[in-house]
């Protein structure tokens, strides 16, 4: 019993041949979503105020996000858009909130969205300057992690940006970020951030009239992605599991604390990669499941290959823990080209 290896998800979609779905009927939302899941393999969780509401959706050979957006748009009162749209298990989480249209581009299985624009005119003891930031989000479907949190990397590249008058608003190459006493771009709604399946970049451009917007914003997101497979491991010191990228072994299992809700355990694990140069975050994703459908985020260290999973409080130690182990890493590109890009003044 030293080695228990169980791949729970066998069929993973290929990155090159992105799965598509065709919807052409009036049916309950749940039916459309079930068809999207069946055709693409992308997990969707749904919480509706009004279950069974029928909507008419017509899309042909649509990507996961194209189809999902069409269903949300037709319903009008359900969305997944937000800072975190998927949990540690990778499933897209639909919740009952009004559907809001953003400028969007579908690029293969990826969805690219301009969510906000900010113009800052600054007078400061560290210098007076003006600049604009355009927030660009890339969403990966449930089977493709796109953020560093999920072990991947997203490199946002702007190739062309012109304001409404056609003036070039790309900053010069190697132009340093403005020095600020208070960094507005660091605020939650304006910052670069990553969640399990999304990565956001606040693209800095020269100052322009944001109410007139951009005549063109063109570029690409270069993604280093991999497929994630669920791997089950019994929570006992010495247990290990071998995956494509290496071996995951439990060093210690100890009780951390007790409360009326149960016991919390600290489980120390070490990953032994086949390629010793690989970092932990490129090998294991940042979620752990307790085998009963509940997933928690892991606090993976940026350095080293040893990490801790904190499980609980639970009445008893689970019989199995699920880790998402990455394999088949490769680079893909998601090009985008937004024209006449404006965000309506709310």
């Amino acid at each position: 019993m030293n080695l228990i290896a169980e791949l729970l998800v066998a069929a993973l979609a290929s990155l090159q041949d992105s799965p598509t779905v065709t919807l052409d009927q009036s049916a309950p939302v749940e039916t459309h979503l079930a068809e999207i899941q069946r055709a693409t393999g992308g997990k969707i969780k749904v919480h509706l105020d009004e279950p069974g509401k029928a909507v008419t959706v017509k899309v042909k050979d649509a990507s996961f996000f194209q189809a999902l957006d069409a269903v949300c748009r037709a319903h009008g009162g359900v969305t997944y858009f937000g800072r975190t749209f998927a949990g540690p298990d990778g499933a897209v989480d639909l919740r009952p909130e009004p559907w809001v249209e953003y400028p969007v581009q579908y690029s293969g299985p990826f969805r690219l969205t301009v969510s906000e624009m900010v113009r800052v005119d600054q007078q400061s003891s560290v210098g007076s300057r003006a600049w604009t930031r355009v927030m660009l989000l890339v969403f990966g479907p449930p089977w493709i992690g796109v953020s560093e949190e999920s072990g991947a990397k997203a490199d946002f590249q702007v190739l062309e940006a012109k304001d409404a008058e056609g003036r070039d608003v790309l900053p010069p190459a190697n132009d340093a970020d403005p020095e600020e006493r208070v960094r507005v771009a660091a605020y939650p709604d304006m910052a670069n951030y990553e969640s399990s399946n999304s990565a956001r970049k606040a693209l800095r451009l020269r100052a322009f009239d944001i109410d007139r917007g951009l005549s063109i914003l063109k570029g690409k997101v270069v993604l280093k992605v991999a497929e994630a497979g669920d791997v089950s491991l019994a929570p006992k010191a010495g247990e290990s599991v071998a995956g494509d990228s290496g071996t995951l072994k439990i060093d210690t299992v100890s009780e951390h604390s007790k409360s009326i809700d149960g016991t919390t355990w600290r489980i120390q694990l070490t990953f032994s990669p086949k390629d010793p140069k690989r970092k932990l975050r490129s090998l294991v994703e940042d979620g752990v499941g307790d085998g009963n459908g509940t997933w928690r985020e892991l606090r993976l260290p940026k350095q080293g290959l040893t990490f801790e999973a904190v499980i609980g409080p639970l009445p008893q130690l689970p019989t199995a823990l699920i880790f998402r182990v990455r394999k088949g890493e490769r680079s893909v590109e998601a090009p985008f080209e937004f024209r006449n890009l404006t965000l309506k003044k709310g």
Partner: protein
Amino acid sequence: MATIVLLAAAILLQDDVSRQIERLKSDAIDERESAIRELEAIGSAALPALQKEAAAVQDLETRYRIQALLKSIPRREALAKVFGATKRVTYSAREAPLREVLDALGKPLGETLRLEGPDAGSKLTIELKNATLWEALDGVARAAKIRYEYRKDGVVFLQGQEPAFPVRYSEQFRISVVEVKRIQYRKPGSSEDLVLVVPEIEYQRNMNPAEKYGAFRSSVFEIEQIVDPQGNNLRSRAPWGPGSLSSRRPFGIQEFYYAKADSKTLTIQGVAKAKFSKLDQEVVLPIEGEVREAKVGDATFTLSGYTPGATRSTVTIQGKIPSTPGAPDPPLRVKKMMLLGPDNQRVTGQGDRGSFSSTEFTYTYEFPPLKFKPEKFVFEWTAEIFSIDMPFRLEGIPVPQPQD
């Protein structure tokens, strides 16, 4: 004869006080600012006349300025008792080289004044009369058309000028604005045009804040008003949440506020509240042994847990402390946490989590993986605190206007 001289001096002084009080009512900001500085320099001798004027004056703005002086003047003596006298200097020069001026000011101010960029031979004319450290540094920067940074290793003068932000001087402190941003934010369903204004208290380097950075946010400035020149309220909130400061300068405590972008200038008025440590005491708690307790005055600290680990080690302590009204939260009074091993091995840690009331706290500190077996947990406890309230009003803060 001596009595007559003293009497004459007293009459002259009261004449001066009356003249400065009249200048407080001026329509010109510079005139009012100058009067405030003069009255602060006169000190407690100005208090009776100010109290009389406060009761009589009708104009609310003037009354506010007088009331602020009635609070700030007595504070000088209290501050001097705790932190020593304010650094002050009297100096004048006409068409003197910059380097010569800095050399002359360095010693009386007790500061190292360096140049990084500006021409040491450039000429300037300056007159400083009983000027505080901050008035002197600002005076040099203004006269030489340069700027300065008050750094840990001294004062460095640099090329470029500060924006024309209003400044208030109060003994060891300089209260001003360091940054103003006009922010246009667009998002489907939520769009705002706001101004972000960042007031700051700078303090002399001999002073030690009792709270560390993040914790200052709730207690440093109590802004009563952000208004336009007509007195209309401009205070606002940002849809993206309060956010946090991401850049600070040493010896400066900053805060930020949002206002509507409806005016070309702003006035902010309120009270700057700062807490400085009068006394920090070292506390040493053994990691092992039966007695893992230490007393500092009426405070008792107990080490209740030490957990070594491959990814991090943690120490948990419990404190029982006397209630101190106005003091920072107890965990913020614990500073410079270290684990010490044999042969002076040491590693510094940081706060992780805990709970507290005004008289008790339990807190866990985390440390990186250790390469030695620790023997002691050591920290500094802020045993005595001095709170300072400084009423202030900064008028005519310019709001940047978008220009493509």
